[in-house]
C-alpha cells in the first residue's frame, strides 16, 4: 500500500463516522433546529478532516516532485556536454520552487500541469490562509495525484533508459 492510499484510508475512517452521525441525527432528533445545528457541526468537522488529509496528500506530492527533480538533475548532468553541465549544476545547487520543478517534469500543454498547479494553489490556500470553507472530493484528488506521479515516473524512466 502506497502512502497516498494509506492517507486516503485514514481519511475515510473518520469521514464515514461523521457522515453516519449526520444520518443518525435525522432519526434521533425531532426538533428541526437541533437537527440543523447538529448537521452543521458535523458538516464543518468533515471539512476540516478533508483539509487535513488533503494537505497530507499535497505534501506527499511535493516530496515526490522534489525527489524526482533531483533525479532529473542528476540524469541531465550525466548526459550534458560541458556548457549545459554548468547550467544544470547551477539548477541543482539552487533552491527551486515547486512550480518550476513541475515545469521541468511535466509537459505544460497538458491537463496534468494545470491540475498539479491547481492542487498546489488549493494546498497553499488551506495551509497558509486557513481557508476551510470548501469540502474536498478525496478519492478524485488521489486519483489525479496518481496520474501526475505516474506521468513523472514515466518521464524519468524514459530519460534514464536513454543512452
Amino acid at each position, binding site marked *: 500500500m502506497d502512502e497516498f492510499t494509506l492517507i486516503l484510508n485514514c481519511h475515510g475512517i473518520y469521514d*464515514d*463516522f461523521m457522515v453516519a452521525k449526520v444520518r443518525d441525527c435525522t432519526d434521533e432528533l425531532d426538533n428541526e433546529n437541533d437537527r440543523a445545528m447538529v448537521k452543521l457541526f458535523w458538516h464543518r468537522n468533515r471539512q476540516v478532516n478533508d483539509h487535513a488529509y488533503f494537505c497530507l496528500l499535497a505534501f506527499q506530492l511535493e516530496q515526490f516532485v522534489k525527489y524526482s527533480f533531483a533525479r532529473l538533475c542528476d540524469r*541531465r548532468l550525466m548526459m550534458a556536454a560541458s556548457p549545459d553541465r554548468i547550467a544544470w549544476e547551477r539548477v541543482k545547487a539552487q533552491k527551486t520552487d515547486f512550480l518550476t520543478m513541475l515545469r521541468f517534469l511535466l509537459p505544460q500543454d497538458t491537463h496534468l500541469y494545470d*491540475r498539479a498547479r491547481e492542487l*498546489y494553489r488549493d494546498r497553499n490556500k488551506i495551509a497558509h490562509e486557513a481557508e476551510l470553507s*470548501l*469540502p474536498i*472530493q478525496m478519492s478524485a484528488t488521489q486519483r489525479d495525484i496518481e496520474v501526475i506521479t505516474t506521468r513523472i515516473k514515466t518521464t524519468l524512466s524514459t530519460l534514464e533508459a536513454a543512452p
Partner: protein
Amino acid sequence: MGKTYDSSDDDDLEYHPPTREEVFAQLEDWRQRLRKLYADIISWLPEGEGYETEICDYMTDEGPMRYVGVPPQPVPELRVFYHGELRLTFTPDACWIIGAGGQVLVHTHTTSHELYDSTSPFVEPGWRLIRKNRRNLSLGVQFLTRPFNRDEARGYLFDQQQLKDLMEPAHG
C-alpha cells in the same frame, strides 16, 4: 533543456472567490446537472415494479454562498421508494468541492455513498459512485486483512447497474 520557462502564470495562484452573480450562475448550473441526473435515474428504474420517486427541495448553504451573503438556496433532492418504503435519498452535498464538479450523498438504510461529478480532467466526464460498505466503521480484522480495492475506492461510473446494486437491501 532548450526552453526558457516563463514564470508569469505564477501570479494566478491566488484563489478568487466567486462573485454574487457567479454564485447564482453556478447554483443554476448545479440544479440543471442534478435534474439531468435524476431524470437518468428515474428512466433507469424498471416500470411497473413498484418504484416511485419524489423530488423535493433541499436547502443548501455552502462556503462561497456565505462568503457573498447569499442565504440558503433550494436544490432538488431525489427520493426513491420501493412499494412505499424509502430506499434511496439523493441529497446534494456540495456544489463547490475541491477535486470534483459537485457531490451528492446517496443515503440508503444503513450507509451513505458518495456520488461525484468527475469534471476532473483525467477521467471521463460523468457521475462516479464511491460505495461505502461500512468496512471502515467496524475496524475489525476483516478490514485489516481485506485486500484494498483501488477501483472500489475511486468509484465506478454511475449507471443502471450501479443503481440496481444500490437498491438491493442486502447491500446496504
